[in-house]
Every structure is written in structure tokens, then in C-alpha cells.
């Protein structure tokens, strides 16, 4: 099986650890991972911001770059959600999207794995990001993966399904409202008592992690892959 990593522009440029960890987990499970160097951005940012022409160009480009692979795996529920929902209607390859997987879906669904052979000492709370939850419907896969990690204590997150307030350009255009949403999310993360907050989306983690660091919180923000690679 030819598997490509779609690392996303955001993880490539700002949070490379989530990409590296994704490679580690997949290779540990015997998957031969390729990284098509031509990849850049799927165009979600542009579509959601209202720039359809740019989104169309990037969707076609995405389809060309990943055309020959049996599976495309990504550490971003949001970007995969975009590819699955919009690629075909933006005029790109209609057969590709169903071969594009968010990491937890690929592990639990395609590979049928729950225990990936990692260890982690400490308590973790899981934030189901909006697009993993309501666009991709990843369900409880991430929590099952976390639950199978020896040493990891999964702490429930109050009001888990509330948005963290990121929303791409929303966090810039409506920064104050976004900040108020983040404040609630961080209060709930604190209430969970966990030492780390985990999600399947580097973009939301950029937001939550940025809020934690600004408040000098000892709570770490970790991508699911980073825990599974440990």
C-alpha cells in the first residue's frame, strides 16, 4: 500500500512535531510513508475565508500531488474534512477524497489498530475538535487510542464539544469573541485536572497551546500523534 503523509501547511511551517510524530507512529506500525514534496496547502483557509478561486486552484493541485497514492494520512481533522467535503465540488479528482484519512481514523479504521505500542506517564484530557467531531465524525477513535496507552490517565473534559474559538481567520477577524471562547475552553481544560490537552488538529492546538503558554499554564498541548509516538 502506498501511503502518503499530508502534513498540512500549518504543521509543516509552525508545528512540525505533530508531523514527525505521525511518521513515527505509522512507521512503527510497518507503514511505508512517503512525503510528496510538492504538497503545500489544501485550500481550506481560502475557501472558508471566501476566496473560492484560490481554493479551486489549491484543490486541483492537492489532487494532482496525491493522485497515485492508495491512502493519504494527515494529522489534521479539519483539513481532511475540507478535502472530503469540498474537493470534488471544487472541480478536483472525485475519487481521491475517500482515500484521505485523519490519523485516528486511519489507525482505528483502516489499520484496525488501537494499541500502537506507546507509553505515556500522566493525565491527558481530549478535546474533540469541531471538524473531527461534526464534519468527519471520527467518534471515539481518538479516545480508544489514548485509552490503550499504558500509563496514560484519560481525564474527561467538561463541555468537550464546545469550539475552542480558532476557526481560521475567525481568530483574527473576530479576535475578541474567539478569545472569549478560548477562555472558556482553557477553564474547562484546567477543570479537567489533566497535565496535557490532546487533539487531532494542529490548528486548534496552535490556538489552545498559544492560550496556555500566554497564561503560563503548566498544562501542555499535544497532538494525538505526539502521545502515540511516545
Amino acid at each position, binding site marked *: 500500500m502506498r501511503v502518503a503523509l499530508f502534513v498540512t501547511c500549518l504543521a509543516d*511551517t*509552525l508545528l512540525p512535531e505533530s508531523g514527525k510524530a505521525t511518521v513515527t507512529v505509522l512507521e512503527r506500525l510497518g507503514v511505508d510513508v512517503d512525503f510528496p514534496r510538492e504538497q503545500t*496547502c489544501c485550500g481550506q483557509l481560502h475557501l472558508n475565508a471566501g476566496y473560492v478561486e484560490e481554493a479551486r486552484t489549491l484543490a486541483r493541485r492537492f489532487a494532482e500531488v496525491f493522485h497515485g497514492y492508495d491512502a493519504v494520512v494527515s494529522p489534521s481533522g479539519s483539513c481532511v474534512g475540507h478535502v472530503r467535503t469540498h474537493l470534488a465540488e471544487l472541480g478536483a479528482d472525485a475519487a481521491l477524497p475517500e482515500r484521505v484519512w485523519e490519523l485516528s481514523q486511519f489507525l482505528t479504521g483502516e489499520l484496525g489498530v488501537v494499541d500502537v505500542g506507546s507509553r505515556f506517564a500522566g493525565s491527558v484530557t481530549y478535546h474533540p475538535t469541531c471538524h473531527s467531531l461534526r464534519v468527519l465524525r471520527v467518534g471515539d477513535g481518538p479516545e480508544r487510542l489514548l485509552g490503550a496507552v499504558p500509563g496514560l490517565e484519560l481525564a474527561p473534559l467538561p463541555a468537550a464539544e464546545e469550539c475552542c474559538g480558532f476557526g481560521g481567520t475567525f481568530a483574527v477577524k473576530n479576535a475578541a*469573541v474567539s478569545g472569549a471562547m478560548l477562555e472558556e475552553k482553557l477553564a474547562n481544560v484546567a477543570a479537567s485536572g489533566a497535565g496535557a490537552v490532546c487533539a487531532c488538529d494542529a490548528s486548534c492546538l496552535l490556538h489552545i497551546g498559544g492560550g496556555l*503558554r500566554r497564561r503560563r499554564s503548566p498544562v501542555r498541548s499535544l497532538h494525538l500523534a505526539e502521545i502515540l509516538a511516545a
Partner: protein
Amino acid sequence: MSQAARSAPSEPFPVAARAALGDAQTRANLARATTTIRARRAAVVAEVDDWEELRAAGAALRDDALGRLDDVLLELEASVERAGGVVHWARDAAEANAVVVEIVQDAGAAEVVKVKSLTTDEIGLNDALAAAGISPLETDLAELIVQLAGERPSHLLVPAIHKNRVEIRDLFRERLGRPDLTDDPFELAEAARVHLRAAFLRARVAISGANFAVAETGTVGVVESEGNGRMCTTLPEVLVTVMGIEKAIARWRDLEVLLQLLPRSSTGERMNPYTSLWSGVRAGDGPRAFHLVLLDGGRTRALADPEGRPALRCIRCSACLNVCPVYRQTGGHAYHTVYAGPIGAILAPQLAGERGQPGSLPFASSLCGACADVCPVRIDIPRILVHERAKVVGAESQGLEGLALRRLGRVFASRSRYERAQRLARALQRPAVRDGHVRWFAGPLAGWGAERDLPGVPPQTFREWWEARERGA
């Protein structure tokens, strides 16, 4: 009030929202109210085994009516007139207001009682009535509270959701001349009841909105909790209903679906306390004259846009407001429209049209999708938000943001440009980055930087790591 509500917003959403965030009391009231109503909705929806089928049926029957609205409306007109009612067609707010004012004046009335006032708020009817020397009295308890306070409704269904009991007590003490009142809900409701009862008995004309109108039978329906609507629709001699044309449904049996979806989605009740359905007039029972004013007000334009059209399915349940994390923070006033929350953010720009596009509203969402999951008629609100954003971007210059995003589009379209941009960003960020994180934020990033840190481009991007690994391997 309603004038401000129907004109173009004087300030864009982000500005109004920032002000709203400073109102701790309103935010606390909102958080409490929306949390309660969400839990109630979730509980009663979970009871229904075929909820998803009901939603699908609701969407289908609304689409069916909207898909042949011209025929449905003509059938509705014929049915209403056969039953003794009079139908008026209004292209816009001005025409609708003129029709209503004339009916009230012909009846020789100087005051009217009102219920279900969303559509009349949309057209600014209260101002038009006042300008003609007619005093309108809102009879829905929450609408009355808002009217007495001189404010605008902040929620489709719970117009006074931003107010708590103590605030209402103080308002009633002052405006109803009842200094003795406590904040006991029963006492407050009783005070309103006494105030309204006199008006119901006096009023010769009532003005209502409508939840639905059935084309096949000419039946108009109002769904409510208090019974004040029924007072309005039965006591006065003349009843005027102002309804957006999209509220028409084709068949009587469609009510079976909608009357299950609506109360569970809106108030979280299995059944609403009062459902009033009337067809024209009947001798010796109820109003002697019935007028149905059918308002276009931008609806045919919205109908002509296949991507935006599903917004017209809306049955005004407000479930999307109650689950929206943005609405929950800001409340309805920040939207500066009668229709607030996620549905308002897609409906208001479509209805506003040439009256000035509330261009900031489609951006008032993180696209979290909670609204689409609860919509009883399955409106894909995030999809329409994105569609409306594209319309705004296509219609007006986005300034610096537009330049930046178009430029970024070109960068992403080429691997070499993209990799060069990564290296360039790393070089340029140097003075602004300490300990791997940006320490000052300029221009559009200032808002982000007010509350969050941001990592800089690291010494090694993912692709550089991959390439180093390949070389080493």
C-alpha cells in the same frame, strides 16, 4: 429600535461584539439561559426514535414548497380568500407597512395589540404605526419586556433572554407603576397579565406574525407558550397577519412534521402549550375581518440563489442560536439584525440586499458546525456562511486581508514559492521572535496576540526535517 434593526449595521460585528463582551451581566444571563434550553432540547429530541427521519421530512417539505413557491402562494391566496380573508402582496417593508397602517386606520383604531412580531420587526412596523399616530402594544411577555425597556429583541424566540428577573422587576416597577413588585416570576407574570388583559379587551385590531400558512386550506398558524397570541387572534374585530412568503407550506399534513420539530427544537417541549390555527373568518366566532400580508422583502432574491436558498427553510426555532458559541458570548444585539445567531448571519445578508449588506455577519462564526447538527430542517448553515463570505469577498475590496490572502494563494500554488516563503518568514521574524515564539504582533495579528502566543517558524520545518532524514538514510 426597529429602525436600527432594519437599516445596515452602523458598526461591523467584531466591533459590536467587543462591546457586548464587556457586559458581564448579559453574558451571565445568556450563558445560564442557553445552557438550560440546550439541555432541555437535547433531552426531548433524544426521546424521539425517528428524529433524523423527521428532520429529513421537514427539510423535504420545506424544499418542496420553496421549489414551487409561486404556485403555492397563489393557492394560498385563493384558499384564504375562499375562507373570507383578504390577501395583500407587499414587495418590501414600505409596501407592507403602508398596507397595515391603512387597515388599522380604516378600522378607526388608535392602538393595536401584537404577537409574533419578528417579521413586523424586520419591516419596522412599530415605527410606521407610531408615525401614523397608532400605538402598538407587544403582548408576548418577553416582547413586552423589550418594548417597555426601549430595546431590541436579542433572541428569535426568547427576545428578553439578555435580561434576568431582577432587571425585569425593576423595569416593571418603573414602567407599569408597580413599586410593590418582587422578582418572583409568578408575581411578574401576573403584573404583565393585568396590564395586558385590559389592552386585549380594548383592542379592535390585532397584528400577528405566522409560523406557517397552509396553501391547500388557507390556514394560518401561530405556535406559542403564553396564550396571549390566542387572545390577539380571537378577541379583536380585525386581525392582520404579516408573513414572509417563505413561510407557506403546501399541505395540511405537513403540519404533522413541523409541529413535532418546532417545539422540541425551540423551547425543548414535547408540545407547545398553544397552537392557534385559523382559516379566514367565521360568523359569530373570532375576528370579523382577516388580512394576510405576504411580504417578499428580499426573499425572492434569496430564492434565486440555489446555494443560499436552503436558509429559507428556517422555521425560526432558534436551536442554532442556543448552541452557537459565538452567540453565547455576544448575545443577539451585536448582530444588529432582527435575525441573530447563525441563522441570522446567513438570512440577514440575503434579505437585506440593496438595503445595505451586513457584510461582517457571515464572518461571525468559527464554522464549528454545532448549528447544522441541531437544525430541525437540516440547513447546512456553515456551508451557506462560506457561500455568503464568498459573495462579500467578490463584491467589496477586502483591503489588506484581500491582498494577503490572494498573495498567499499564489505562494501555496507553487512548491518553490512556498518553500521560499517559509525561509523568508524565518529570516524576517528574527527581531520579533524570542524563545521560539512571536513576542510582538503587528496589524491584523494584534487581536491574536492580545490573548495568545504564537510559535515562530522553527529552525527546521517538517519538510526540512524530512529532507535531512532522507539524506541521512
